[in-house]
């Protein structure tokens, strides 16, 4: 925001009056400004105040990039690893890393370790998410693998200590992340339930929600005009990319007519990033009592202000984003909607469900999300992060049959 305070109002008024204010910028122009250190970058929270102060047209003219971010648990997380061959070589068919099983159905020394896979010896207090973060932290991880022995891979067993810098490749792959408008959770039953949304107390005793709200990537680009396949992103402290639409992608969801945000769960993103450049400040294992382990993944996505429509979406406020509070005591069929509330309501710490005041609590870290949005802003301002135009945009029409699984993580 301070960036704009240096502008005098008459200047802004002039900008506003430019030929019907039909401004448009290209990726090339914005990247040129980034390379010259002249790009104006603000976060998706800062843009709200700017638009309120100087108006949409002037803000769209002035601001080049808006940064969005989120830092919450995402079970659909894992990492591809390639160990390199031992001598004699083993076709690794059953693979364990610190007693956590990794997938053995790929080529001889390739694997995928999922964040939610639990340790054979310690249960869910230590799982795939912990293995991935131990690797990022440079710790030694015990590899045990077995194969049946083949002519080309005669050895049947490998026991080794590996480290991130001793293996060939290591990249994080999220089949699903950045859920667009994830529902909040509560529990109408008579007993407490323990879920991936945390402990949900009996008789609608609490509500938990997982979103960075007005800072969340896909809530700021509701129609996927700039976030698509190939978009360069911040992920877990490293630079990465949107690799595909995420699993359970549901862009054909009903949308709010005022801001195009899906009324229920909408799109998701599949993300990829180099583990070797990550930092566990921005990616951390999470353990949910009586549920299991998962991964908190920090994601930052820049949105180029190509035109005023894009900026209008970026200026979305928590009070204008509505989501459902679902009843997690129902596991057979779609979860019933207990209330429909705005993110601003959720953030007050208390909402009303059927006349009863119910306490709310977040699961996504808003301060860490803000830190990521600020860090990405800084990287763009410094010229170390340029924007990548998507090579393919996501559809807003149905992409295939999607079973109604509203509320599933």
């Amino acid at each position: 925001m301070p960036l704009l305070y240096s502008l005098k109002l008459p200047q802004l008024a002039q900008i506003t009056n430019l030929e019907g204010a039909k401004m448009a910028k290209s990726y090339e122009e914005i990247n040129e400004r980034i390379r010259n250190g002249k790009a104006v970058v603000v976060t998706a929270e800062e843009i709200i105040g700017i638009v309120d102060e100087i108006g949409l047209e002037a803000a769209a003219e002035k601001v080049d990039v808006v940064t969005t971010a989120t830092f919450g648990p995402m079970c659909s997380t894992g990492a591809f690893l390639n160990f390199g061959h031992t001598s004699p070589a083993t076709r690794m068919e059953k693979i364990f890393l610190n007693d956590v099983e990794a997938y053995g159905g790929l080529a001889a020394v390739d694997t995928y370790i999922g964040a939610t896979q639990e340790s054979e010896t310690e249960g869910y207090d230590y799982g795939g998410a912990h293995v991935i973060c131990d690797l990022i932290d440079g710790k030694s991880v015990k590899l045990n693998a077995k194969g049946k022995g083949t002519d080309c891979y005669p050895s049947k067993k490998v026991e080794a200590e590996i480290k991130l810098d001793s293996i060939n490749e290591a990249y994080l792959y999220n089949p699903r992340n950045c859920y667009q408008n994830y529902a909040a959770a509560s529990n109408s039953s008579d007993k407490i339930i323990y879920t991936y949304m945390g402990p949900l107390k009996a008789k609608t005793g609490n509500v938990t929600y997982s979103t960075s709200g007005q800072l969340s990537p896909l809530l700021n680009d509701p129609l996927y005009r700039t976030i698509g396949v190939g978009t360069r992103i911040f992920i877990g402290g490293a630079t990465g990319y949107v690799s595909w639409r995420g699993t359970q992608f549901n862009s054909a969801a009903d949308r709010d007519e005022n801001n195009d945000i899906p009324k229920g769960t909408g799109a998701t993103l599949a993300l990829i990033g180099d583990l070797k450049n990550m930092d566990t400040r921005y990616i951390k294992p999470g353990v949910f009592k009586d549920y299991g382990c998962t991964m908190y993944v920090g994601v930052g996505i820049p949105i180029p202000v190509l035109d005023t429509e894009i900026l209008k979406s970026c200026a979305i406020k928590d009070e204008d984003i509505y989501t459902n509070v679902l009843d997690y005591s129902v596991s057979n069929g779609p979860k019933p909607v207990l209330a429909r509330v705005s993110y601003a309501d959720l953030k007050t710490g208390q909402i009303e469900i059927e006349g009863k005041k119910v306490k709310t609590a977040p699961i996504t870290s808003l301060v860490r999300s803000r830190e990521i949005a600020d860090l990405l802003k800084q990287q763009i301002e410094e010229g170390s992060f340029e924007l990548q135009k998507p090579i393919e945009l996501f559809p807003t029409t149905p992409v295939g049959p999607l079973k109604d699984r509203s509320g599933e993580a």
Partner: protein
Amino acid sequence: MKTKFLINFPATQSQEPVVYKLIADYDLRVNILKASIDINLQGHMLAEVEGKSEKISEAILYLEGVGIEADFVKSTISRIEDKCVDCGLCTTVCGSKALRIGADTGWQLEYEDNRCVGCNLCIQACPLQAITNEVGLGV
């Protein structure tokens, strides 16, 4: 003054009417937060105690005199700062509002140990394993 006592009873002293004594002899307001006695007749009690500071000192001396260990505790939990990411999920189980997060705290987790009643529910609720049990009392 107001403080918290963590009282450990050896098996030989589990018949001592401690709470009655604290109230009747030392004029203390005692609010039992948690109490248990195990199969070996060893007991633990976490209590909030309010009264004149000299009476609180005398009460401690009395307890020690009858062979009961008593200690001041600020809180039964400890937050590991570098593990905590300020997500706020722990606040959902904290009925005493010792753990708080919201716009008023800048969305940073705030912990007021004097409000903690020692329920320890936050330890298991924390997904980051960032809250530890300080005095060995269970949930």
